C-alpha cells in the first residue's frame, strides 16, 4: 500500500505516523507491506466493535477525515497518551480521545498537504461506535483509504472531499 507519486496519500500517511509517534509513542506499519496481511491481523484482534471519529475539513478543501479503530486499540492508545489517568476511561472518554487523535491527524495532514503555504480550517469533530467497519459513514466516497497495523491492531483512515487533488 505504498503512496508512490500520490502527494495526498503521502501527506496522509506521514500525518498518521507523525501523530501516533508523537502522541502515543507507537509505530505504524502499512498493512500488507511490513505488517501481517489484514486477514491475519483481524483473526488476531477481531474488530467486533469499532470506534470512529470524523473531522470536517472546511477550508480551503471541503471534506472529512475519519479514523476507525477497535475498542481495544482505542483503549491502548488512550492509555499511552493519557497514562496519568487514575481511573479506567469510560466509553465517552475513549471516544473523546479518538476524536482528539483524529483532530491532530487532520491538522498534520492539512499542513503536510498544503506544505504550510496557506491557513486552513477544520470543523468540530463528530464520533461514534459501530458494530463493523462497513457501517461507518465517512460522509462520501473515500478518495483515500489507508489501513495500518498499530501494535497488532488494525487502524483505518478514510479521506473524502473536494479540493484535495493528489
Amino acid at each position, binding site marked *: 500500500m505504498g503512496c508512490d507519486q500520490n502527494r495526498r496519500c503521502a501527506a496522509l500517511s506521514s500525518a498518521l505516523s507523525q*501523530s501516533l509517534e*508523537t*502522541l502515543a509513542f507507537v509505530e505504524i506499519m502499512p498493512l500488507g507491506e511490513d505488517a501481517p496481511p489484514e486477514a491475519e491481523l483481524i483473526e488476531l484482534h477481531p474488530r467486533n466493535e469499532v470506534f470512529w471519529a470524523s473531522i470536517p475539513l472546511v477550508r480551503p478543501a471541503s471534506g472529512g477525515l475519519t479514523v476507525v479503530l477497535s475498542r481495544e486499540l482505542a483503549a491502548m492508545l*488512550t492509555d499511552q*497518551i*493519557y497514562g*496519568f*489517568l487514575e481511573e479506567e476511561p469510560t466509553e*465517552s*472518554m475513549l471516544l*473523546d*480521545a479518538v*476524536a*482528539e487523535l483524529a*483532530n*491532530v491527524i*487532520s*491538522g*498534520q495532514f*492539512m*499542513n503536510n498537504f*498544503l506544505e*504550510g*503555504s*496557506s*491557513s*486552513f*480550517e*477544520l*470543523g*468540530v*469533530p463528530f464520533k461514534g461506535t459501530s458494530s463493523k467497519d462497513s457501517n461507518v459513514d465517512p460522509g462520501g466516497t473515500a478518495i483515500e483509504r489507508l489501513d495500518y497495523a498499530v501494535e497488532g491492531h488494525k487502524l483505518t483512515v478514510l479521506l473524502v472531499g473536494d479540493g484535495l487533488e493528489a
Partner: protein
Amino acid sequence: MLQRVLIVDDSTMARMLIRRCVEIAGWPDVTFHEASNGKEALTLLGNEQVDLVLTDLNMPEMDGEQLLNVLRKDDKYSNLPLVVITSAGNAPKEEQLRQTGATAILAKPISPAVMATTLESIFGATDGM
C-alpha cells in the same frame, strides 16, 4: 505570577492533557478552570479572575478566534495572556492570530517542554520544575 488558568477546549481529554502539561511544565499548584467553548469561557471569566487563558480554536458555539476577538476588544481583558493551542496552525494562521492579539500559539500535540518555554516567556521562570 501564574496562579489561575482557564482551559477552553470542547474535548474533555484535551483539557486533561493540557492541564497535565501545565503541571509538568513547572506549575503543579495552579488552580484550573475549564470551559468547553468560548461562550462558556466568557461566562466563567465574568465570575472568576484568571491569569492565563489556554484555548483551542475549533469549538462549537463560539470558537477560539471569536473568543480572542471578544477579549481583545474588552479593556478588562485586553492584556490577559491568551495562548492558542491548535491542530490547525501553520505560519499564515499563526501570523493572523498574533495580529488579533494571541500571546502565543502552540501546535497540537503539545509537549510539557514547549508549554514550559511558553509559560516562562510570559510569567518568568518557576522554581517548581
